[in-house]
Every structure is written in C-alpha cells, then in structure tokens.
C-alpha cells in the first residue's frame, strides 16, 4: 500500500522553510508526505507491448493439461517497499486461440525466471489466469489484475563496481498456455506495471 499519509502530493509554499523562519510541524509532515509519495509513485510500467497485424508472435500448442510457455520477458527492474517486499504488479494480457479454447496464465517471478512448467503450476498468488475461445485478439478478463511478487528472493544481482555496487532487483514475466483438451493459442499483448495503492 501507499506509504504516504495522503496518497498524493500536497502543495505548500517552499518559502516557509526559508532562512530564519520557524519550522512548523505541519509543514514537516507535508514534506514527509510528499517525499513518500514521490517514492511510491515512482512505480514503473515494466512490460507493455501489442501486436500489429502479425499472427506468428509467441504461439504455443499442446495436449491436455500440459503447460506450454509462449512468452518470456527479459529482466525487469522492480523496486521494493520499506519492508523489502516488491510492489505488486498490475497485469493484463491480450490473446487469442487458433481453435477451441485455451487457458492463458501470466506468471511473475522475482530473481529466478519462470521458465519451467512447474512455475506455471505455482499457486502462490504470483499468477493470474483466463480462458478464452476467441479467435481474434482480445484483452482477457483475468481472475485478478494485481499480482503480489514472492518475497523469498528479493535481490538477484549485485552489479559490478563499474556501475556503483548497487543492488538491482529484477523480475520476469512469462505467459503459459494450457487447457483441459488440446490447445493452440497466441499471445498478442502483455502489460505489467508496479502499483503502490491499497
């Protein structure tokens, strides 16, 4: 959740903290609120792409109850809250099927990438799913739009001295396909953005 008291910037007259002015505690609370809101809303869009009349990008097909990975992102820069947990991600997924129906599952992992079928079967809250039979691309109605990243591994890379010995935390987003029958589907767009609200 947002750490700032008011969840927004508050306007104030900066000259009130000029030389020789007494420091009002209300003013200090505003400074505190604004600094926290600046850090909160730094939340970034991490993934956003959409196809444009191309039909062959990120397809997968398989047999009953298999999970096949269709899309796999690169490392995504994420930020952490005061308790060390990453901000949750708001996600959305566009897709279509070749025929029949297909369940699409978007999986987010911290550190180690969601690469294997076992990652797709995780039920730890770091995934969202939807089933469709649409043969034209649509934004799916996922069973949830907010994914809380797992907290067991929050720093996966310590960079070299060349770039300042700073901890960089990354996540990856993957999309798996499955269904109770054979399936064939296509990922048409992915959106993932950090969120600091409730």
């Amino acid at each position: 959740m947002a750490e700032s008291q008011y969840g927004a910037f508050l306007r104030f007259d900066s000259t009130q903290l000029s030389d020789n002015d007494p420091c009002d505690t209300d003013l200090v609370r505003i400074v505190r609120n604004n600094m926290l809101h600046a850090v909160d809303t730094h939340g970034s869009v991490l993934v956003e792409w959409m196809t444009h009349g191309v039909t062959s990008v990120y397809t997968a097909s398989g047999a009953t109850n298999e999970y096949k990975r269709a899309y796999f992102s690169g490392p995504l820069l994420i930020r952490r809250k005061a308790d060390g947990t990453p901000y949750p991600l708001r996600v959305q997924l566009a897709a279509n099927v070749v025929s029949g129906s297909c369940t699409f599952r978007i999986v987010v992992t911290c550190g180690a990438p969601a690469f294997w079928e076992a990652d797709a079967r995780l039920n730890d809250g770091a995934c969202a799913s939807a089933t469709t039979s649409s043969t034209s691309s649509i934004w799916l109605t996922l069973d949830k739009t907010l994914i809380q990243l797992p907290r067991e591994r929050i720093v996966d890379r310590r960079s070299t001295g060349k770039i300042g010995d700073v901890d960089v935390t990354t996540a990856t987003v993957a999309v798996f396909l499955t269904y109770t029958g054979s399936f064939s589907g296509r990922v048409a767009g992915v959106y993932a953005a950090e969120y600091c609200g409730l």
Partner: protein
Amino acid sequence: MPDIAVPALPLIPSLSAITTGRTVRASTWSDMANLGNLAIGAGSVLVPETVLTSTLTTSVDTYRFRAKTRLAGKHRLWCFTFNDNPGNADGEFEIVINGGTPVIITIPPGSIQTYRILEEVSVPALADTELVFTIQRATGSSALNLSVTVFELPRATIDTATEAAVDVSALRPRGPIYDGATLPLVSLATDVTLGRRTGMFHWAVPSRRAGAPITTFARSNSTTTFADVLDLGVPMLARARYRGETTRTLRARFYGWVSVGTATLEVQVFTSRLAATSATVTTSSTTPVWLTELDFTVDCEDLSTSDGLQSATFDLVDVKFRRTGGAGTAYITNISIFEN
C-alpha cells in the same frame, strides 16, 4: 561536492516523531532526506519490455524509441531477449546502441537468452531523448523473436552539485541543523516531477534498412480514413499526483513519413475510458522523421482501489493514422509514450 549514498530501501520517517510542540529530530530530517535521495537515484524504466516483431536479416535494421531520460541516468542497461526456434542454426547478431561500439551476440539454436548491454551516458540530461539501436544478423537463422527493455540503473551515490542530492551529513543527530540544510529537501518536496514515468509504451519496427527508408514493416495507410496502428488499444494509467485528480497528460511521439510530398501523415490518439480524441500531429516529409510531440489525457491511478483502475476499467489508448491531401501512402514505424 560530496557524493551522497542512495539507500537501497525507503526509510519511513515516523509520523509520531513530527508532533506539534516537539522539536523535529535530526534523524527524522535525515530519513526524509534519504527518501529524496532514493527518489532521485532509484533508477527508471525508459523502455518497458516491448516485442520487436520484424524479421531479423543480414541487413542493418534501425529501431528507435523516445523517452524522458533523467539527470541521474548515468548508466542505461539494454536487455535483449531472444526466443529462438528449436532446430535453427546458431545465430550471430551485431548490435550497436546509440552509435557506440558494436556488440556481437551468439544465440544457440532453440535457446532463450537475455543479453545485457551497458551504455554509459556521457552527459545525462533531463530531456525527451531518442534511443536508437541497430541490429544485423551475421549468420544463422532469423526465425526468432526478440524483445527489448531499457532502464536507467539505480545509483549507489548521487551528488549534491548536479543531481540535487540532499546532504544527509548536514542533518545528523546532535549536530546543529542550519536552516539552509533543509532547503534542498524542500526543493525536492515541491518537485512533483520526481518519480515521473519516463517510459510507458513503445512500439517499433525498422524505419531504415542499411540506412535507407524501408516500408516492409511499417504500418501503411493509403486512405483518408483513420486506421489503428495496433491490433488493440493498449492499457495506460498515469500516476496520481494531487488528491482528487482523475486524469493526467502524457506525451506521445511518432515516427513516420509519406511517399509523396504533397500528402500528409496525420496521427491522433483515442482513449477509451474518456472516449476522447486528441489533437493531431502531421508531417509531409518523404523521409522518416519524428513528428512534433502530441500531448493527450488519460486516466490516472486511483490509489483508493485495489488495482488502481477507475471504475474497474482499463483506459485503452489507440493510435490512429491516415493520409490526407495528395496521393500516395502514409507510413508509421514508431510510437513512444511517456510522462514529460
């Protein structure tokens, strides 16, 4: 001027330590200063992961983006993720970022690999900046998918002279706090551009091959009727700044041209939740150019909801383009949207 450490995590100044009738302690000021330094040095996403759907060939293809780079962005990390098809031969690619030194990458067949390339920025600037890379397949198969993300790396330290860091040492416990010591902090607390979303959406296909304009991958429109550039509108939520705000202005940049100089490429943005059509930007250039910036309005996050959506609905942004005047065809190859 001193280099100031950027904390790894936000330190939350205790609210109860800021109470009427009691002196605000140095540690509280220091915590707030650290928050400001974190907001400056936390790193920033310039290009959210975007998929490049064009086929990679033995020619040099140029991809372009625009983003709002920051003063503290001294190092950019470019991450290229290749998804190769099993059975392909090894692929060797040469990538050049912003005219820098070529980097050779080898993709084993059937592999999924991410390659990180670090770009050092000689003069970081707070500016609407063009980011360009070229890619050329030297050997092997072109049958793979490529995606790219670019972010400014978080900083370990920032300086007080050029990057507006707050000198935490001037706010230490049991030392005098001079009134001037808090001024940089106050400056940050009134700077609502801190935490701007420097890159929100990008779409790019090659506009040039071996240096010459190419229309193979461009979206084209020979009619005077607006057509969508993308298959669907893309979700877009700006950050919330002040209380009660429901919308914010974002900036879009487009790269395009027309086949005949008497024609005009016209681009506009439509947002679904607001059901609003933006103004248009145009060019009659017969070679690829960035059009002038287009500012448009989208929903901003509602921080009182579980996912930030207003009325549980994503605001979807459609980019539309057409040819007006004369004859010929209008082409568009790039879209970049960010908070200016």
